[in-house]
């Protein structure tokens, strides 16, 4: 067991040095490839669950595309919000403003913004095309942590979203554009990738018989948000902003737990009253 873990550690340390894939002089960022593979895996899971959720596969596919739009727009908007205080100064002092806009448009996404975007677009899809939103949640909720798991592995390859300095169990990101090259950093991305994969297994296999999409989504929030809150203490990239010693993502985790708890209590009281 220890030997296997040591071999895995050596492999990860080796892989952390290669953020890109080279194919015939074309450089493909592994982060983007992992995001793509994660979305594809999420789509297959959602399509597989669409029969149990009693939704047509066509609607699942279109809702998935709507979710992708929400993922991109939501993640980007929250990222811009986290750096909003820096934006005026950045634009004032940037020599090449087009280059700055390019940089802001193409990189930098916050997962919680993507999650809110996905949720919003699924609500929009169910409202526009008269699909039961509870059924959409039943099909899509386990797909979210699975896609997230792939994305975090992509973050590991890119060296972004890295952890704090750690001589004992850190790795070097020698070719990363973000992580400092000569410092051993805790691979918090891999911990989150493993944790979100476990959450996917919990939602998809353990709670297989659940037919209530709202319950499944609430369960995902109640498991992932505390997990993310704790992991944030090991994050070393503090550009994303903080307030009263808690990071933006920690505040959003607390807010999500609060909102979902209130909605759950309200829903339980309503169902008791109707009975």
């Amino acid at each position: 067991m220890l030997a296997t873990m040591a071999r895995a550690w050596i492999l990860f340390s080796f892989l952390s040095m290669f953020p890109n894939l080279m194919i015939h002089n074309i450089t493909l960022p592994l982060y983007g490839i992992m995001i793509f593979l994660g979305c594809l895996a999420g789509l297959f899971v959602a399509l597989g669950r669409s029969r149990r959720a009693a939704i047509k596969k066509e609607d699942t596919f279109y809702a998935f595309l709507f979710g992708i739009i929400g993922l991109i727009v939501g993640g980007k908007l929250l990222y811009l919000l986290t750096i909003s205080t820096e934006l005026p100064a950045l634009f004032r002092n940037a020599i090449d403003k087009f280059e700055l806009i390019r940089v802001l448009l193409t990189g930098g996404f916050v997962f919680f913004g993507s999650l809110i975007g996905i949720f919003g677009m699924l609500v929009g899809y169910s409202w526009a095309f008269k699909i039961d939103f509870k059924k959409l949640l039943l099909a899509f909720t386990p797909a979210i942590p699975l896609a997230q798991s792939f994305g975090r592995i992509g973050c590991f390859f890119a060296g972004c979203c890295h952890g704090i300095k750690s001589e004992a169990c850190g790795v070097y990101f020698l070719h990363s554009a973000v992580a400092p090259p000569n410092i051993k950093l805790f691979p918090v991305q891999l911990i989150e990738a493993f944790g979100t994969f476990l959450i996917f297994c919990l939602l998809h296999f353990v709670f297989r018989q659940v037919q209530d999409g709202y319950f499944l989504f609430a369960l995902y929030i109640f498991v992932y948000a505390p997990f993310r809150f704790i992991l944030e203490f090991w994050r070393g990239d503090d550009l994303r902003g903080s307030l009263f010693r808690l990071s933006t993502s920690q505040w959003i985790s607390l807010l999500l737990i609060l909102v979902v708890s209130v909605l759950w209590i309200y829903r339980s009281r309503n169902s008791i009253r109707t009975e």
Partner: protein
Amino acid sequence: MNNQQQFQQQDPIQQQRQQHAYQQSQQTPNGYQPQPQAAGGLAIASLILGIVSLIFLFLPVLGYIGIITALVGLILAIVARKQQPTGIATAGLILNIIALVVVTIVFIACAICVSEVSRIAQQLR
């Protein structure tokens, strides 16, 4: 005279129209009614945006505008296909999906942006 006899004595063209209207109402039990002319316009718009997105993605400066046109084109293609699945709407959908895949793999690199913005922000402090 009962309803069936009345129906049989009607003009055949009127019978066909009534049957078609009845079948159309049966095909959309959830109340969602297709609008053929609007769907045609949306399908063409999505196809144009798909073509534009793919062209922009291969141009150095306009590539990032291609992301926005691909997102808008995708929404239009889905709405068009839901209203009336035609070949043009399908083509628009496929082109916009290809554009989004290219954007995801090639352009979206959180590492690059964060490093650039952090470097500039630190210089300003």
